[in-house]
């Protein structure tokens, strides 16, 4: 397996200026509303989880050329195709051509408010005490990952300080690959700008990530 995410953009040069946008400008074409709603409605069927959908999007080979909601639609089509829920000829024809395997749930209009209000909390009971405490110096894993991960490349192999212990949370790295929740302690770890970007970095910058315990070891 050679897993490659195209979404790990932190620290990349050459992307140009940020273009601000007025408040309330949410969609730029009618289909974008549908992309949002279809993605949320299909997510609610339980056919996959949120980490799987992030993984589906970040591994799209043409990630960098797609707009945001194009990513959502292509990610959704990929999740559906992988599970045999939809076939390419059906998308071409714009109608159902093959039997529909049953799903656990279908989201009904009346259930939407309760579903959104409930959300999907990821905190789980602790099975063991946390390995690290606030204030402790830690080093992040340096080697690359061959699977979905939420440790950004710019923060790999860096020394930082545990600032907050955030409880035990579903581990995205396993959850994204159908290997269960395997909940892990989650920490906010802060790095100095110089640790991340070198001595040229302007002083007075701190950057934090939220890191699950398997990403961390005690700093030498």
């Amino acid at each position: 397996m050679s897993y490659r995410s195209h979404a790990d953009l932190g620290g990349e040069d050459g992307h140009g200026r940020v273009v601000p946008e007025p408040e309330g400008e949410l969609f730029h074409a009618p289909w974008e509303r549908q992309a949002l709603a279809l993605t949320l409605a299909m997510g609610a069927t339980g056919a996959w989880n949120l980490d799987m959908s992030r993984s589906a999007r970040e591994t799209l080979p043409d990630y960098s050329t797609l707009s945001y909601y194009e990513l959502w639609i292509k990610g959704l089509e990929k999740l559906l195709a992988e599970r045999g829920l939809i076939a390419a000829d059906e998308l071409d024809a714009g109608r159902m051509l093959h039997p529909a395997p049953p799903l656990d749930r279908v989201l009904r209009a009346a259930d939407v408010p309760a579903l959104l209000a409930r959300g999907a909390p990821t905190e789980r009971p602790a099975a063991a005490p946390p390995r690290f405490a606030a204030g402790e110096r830690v080093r992040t894993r340096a080697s690359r990952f061959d699977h979905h991960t939420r440790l950004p490349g710019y923060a790999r192999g860096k020394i930082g300080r545990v600032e907050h212990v955030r409880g035990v949370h579903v581990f995205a790295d396993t959850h994204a690959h159908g290997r269960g929740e395997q909940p892990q302690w989650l920490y906010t770890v802060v790095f100095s700008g110089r640790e991340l970007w070198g001595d040229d970095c302007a002083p007075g910058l701190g950057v934090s990530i939220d890191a699950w315990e398997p990403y961390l070891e005690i700093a030498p």
Partner: protein
Amino acid sequence: MASDAPQPHARHGQTEDGGPGDMERRVRALRTVLAEKGYIDPAALDVLIDTYERKTGPRNGARVVARAWVDAEFRNWLLRDATAAIASLGYTGRQGEHMVALENTASCHNLVVCTLCSCYPWPVLGLPPTWYKSAPYRARAVKDPRGVLADFGIRLPESTEIRVWDSTAEVRYLVIPQRPPGTDTLSEEQLAACVTRDSMIGTGLARAP
């Protein structure tokens, strides 16, 4: 990519192989097939869109901030347990399950990003703006936050520490901007009007009344 090249994430509805209507057709086909298979209830789609287009948005967060400005006890609660404090005002749920509030001060300015995707506190800010999800913001916020702030017309004193929070897990961050001077006599509702969306991400400041 050259810095003056068009930003791919700023384009909408066009793919390499099609014109502007290509995505419209593609999404319509997908919706039809999913509905025929019984996987979606079209009425549920309408409720989802209405929720995020009209009922949820940064005015929610602005009310949280205004309350924190006028009520010290609420502010302390918000900094200690943002999920519970925000829920007390009625804002809960999807993409806001684990909230943390960050208070901007004269000495420290907080800025929130998701370099890996687009994590954002939906119950208090609604859906993220395009720039928040775009490559320029995600790439630069963690390395050159002052440059990003300049793109928003914001310049902070050199002595102000900048703290960037990369939302890499399911914790969602809400910035409490500094209360603008000259607002002592304003009502909570008037104060909420000073709180912009960008000020709650950290790419802006609360505006003077």
